[in-house]
């Protein structure tokens, strides 16, 4: 296939990818969007086979490896529980990163195959592009692995910090830039390997200081990196589909990181430099220990909600951990039978990745038009009888509005305390991730339900 014709088809697949993202503007069009994405991918792959035009033994092997990878991917996609989506996405990011590194290595080892010059004499621009692709890919890979381990619970979610951390990162970052420069001058393969190794190291160092609840930002950021890595490789291969996709994914991840940071009222750098919560914990949780709390059981909760006319449910990460979404749906069904109006309020950073709660509720067959974002529903708390907080904590803390000393001051929170009564399902009075005591526990209109989120919800269903 001629280079011009294939470039044209790559453009088409790039456009199909844009349409795939466009489809996600509403759930109705989203499924069609996904088919556009699949079509774009198939076109890109067929065009590549035709333009390489090598249908010998190698082609058979390519198909075999394609099927092996595909089978693994399909198996994972069908088996993965929805609560594990954050670690799945982190895992997938690491694969994109590593694939980018491998392609860059291959291009470096055999530049002729990609029309990039010859070994030891690779074009300057290509060399810069492939080393950038390799470096960003490597950072994406090792960073995503760390994020995966933290989300999976294999590694503690606590931030790992040490003295001089930022200086070391800065030094390594400058080293990468220097190595790229030196690589262009010398074309030495040793430099190339050093560059890749250091980039792997930077990925690890970049993610270890970031705590578990900041994972929404981390995942979005790595999403963005995987896009930039793909774009870097796209420039090397002079491939429009890759360049377009890289730019799309890169900006998508960047926007998501921005939305997540805004949801926590923190700057991007504040999150990336890490270590939040580690220092505040000791000072804040002491003073409030003596305050009285009202303690309730499932029957009280069932009675309150049955007699309410409207209930708003506030889910958080705790619901995902307890796998309580199905029990919650049963509870809501029972309430609706009693003529109670129920809606769900989702904070932007509830859960461990953007949109995490929405997927879990969708899995439990909650219709998406009962689920509302913070801005849409926040005024409704004042008119609602019962707010049922399940597995959320910091995102409901009224301190964020009242106490300028608090580390979460200024963070947008759900105005849960404005509802007539608050049911707060929690295992203990321990502070949330930010290490701040939640004022809501001690309010007169709050009834604490000390139990596992799933068990408590099931008990409420029974007493309804």
């Amino acid at each position, binding site marked *: 296939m001629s280079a011009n014709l294939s470039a044209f088809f*790559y453009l088409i697949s790039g456009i199909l990818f844009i349409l795939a*993202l466009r489809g*996600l503007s509403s*759930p109705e069009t*989203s499924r069609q*969007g*996904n088919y556009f*994405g699949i079509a*774009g*991918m198939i076109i890109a792959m067929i065009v590549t086979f035709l333009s*390489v035009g090598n249908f010998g*033994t190698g082609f058979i092997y390519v198909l075999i*490896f394609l099927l*092996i990878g595909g089978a*693994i*991917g*399909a198996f*994972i*996609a069908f088996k993965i529980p929805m609560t594990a*989506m954050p670690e*799945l*996405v982190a895992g*997938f*990011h690491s*694969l*994109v990163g590593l694939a980018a590194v*491998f*392609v860059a290595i*291959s291009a470096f080892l*055999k530049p*002729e*195959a*990609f029309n990039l010059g010859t070994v030891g004499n690779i074009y300057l621009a290509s060399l810069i592009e492939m080393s950038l692709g390799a470096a960003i890919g490597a950072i994406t890979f090792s960073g995503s692995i760390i994020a995966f381990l933290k989300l999976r619970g294999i590694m503690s979610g606590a931030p790992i910090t040490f003295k001089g951390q930022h200086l070391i990162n800065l030094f390594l970052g400058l080293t990468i830039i220097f190595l790229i420069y030196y690589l262009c001058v010398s074309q030495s393969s040793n430099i190339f390997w050093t560059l890749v190794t250091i980039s792997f190291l930077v990925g690890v160092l970049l993610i270890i200081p970031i705590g578990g609840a900041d994972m929404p930002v981390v995942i979005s950021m790595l999403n963005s990196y995987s*896009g930039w890595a793909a774009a870097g490789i*796209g*420039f090397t*291969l002079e491939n429009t*589909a*890759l*360049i*377009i996709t*890289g*730019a*799309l*994914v*890169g*900006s998508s991840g960047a*926007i998501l990181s921005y*939305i997540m940071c805004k949801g926590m009222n923190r700057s991007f750098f504040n999150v990336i430099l890490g270590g939040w919560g580690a220092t505040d914990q000791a000072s804040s949780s002491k003073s409030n220990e003596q305050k009285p709390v009202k303690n309730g059981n499932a029957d009280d909760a069932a009675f309150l909600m049955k007699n309410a006319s409207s209930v708003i449910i506030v889910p958080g990460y705790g619901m995902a951990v307890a796998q309580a979404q199905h029990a919650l749906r049963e509870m809501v069904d029972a309430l609706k039978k009693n003529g109670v109006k129920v809606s769900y309020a*989702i904070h*932007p950073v509830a859960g461990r*990745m*953007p*949109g995490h709660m929405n*997927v879990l509720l*969708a899995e439990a*067959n909650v*219709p*998406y038009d009962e689920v509302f*974002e913070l801005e849409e529903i926040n005024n409704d708390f004042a008119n609602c009888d019962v707010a049922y907080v399940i597995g959320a904590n910091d995102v409901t803390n009224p301190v964020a509005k009242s106490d300028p000393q608090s580390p979460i001051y200024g963070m947008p929170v759900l105005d849960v305390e404005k509802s007539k009564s608050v049911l707060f399902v929690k295992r203990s009075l321990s502070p949330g991730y930010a290490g701040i005591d939640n004022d809501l526990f001690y309010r007169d209109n709050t009834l604490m339900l000390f139990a596992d989120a799933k068990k408590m919800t099931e008990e409420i269903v029974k007493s309804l």
Partner: protein
Amino acid sequence: MEIDPFIFRLSIFILSIFVGYYVVWSVTPSLHTPLMSVTNAISSVIIVGAIIAALAGSSNNIFEPSNLFGFLAIILAAVNIFGGFLVTQRMLQMYKKKKK
């Protein structure tokens, strides 16, 4: 003077960033998780590079180091393509409207 083709690719890149910016802002927040999984799947179009790498060179010796890296990249990208699109599809199937 002729314009370097690099400039054209750079133009496509920058324009795509803008397209991405506006398209992604229009994505409804409730679909942010599928957005991440589908961007994951489409960024695996890097498989294009992997295929070229794997098939490079003469067909008698298809297991040179550069080909091997290509084959490895094909496996990784294929996991992502199939896994990414299928898991997105699975999630999107779950988003339903209220039964009236």
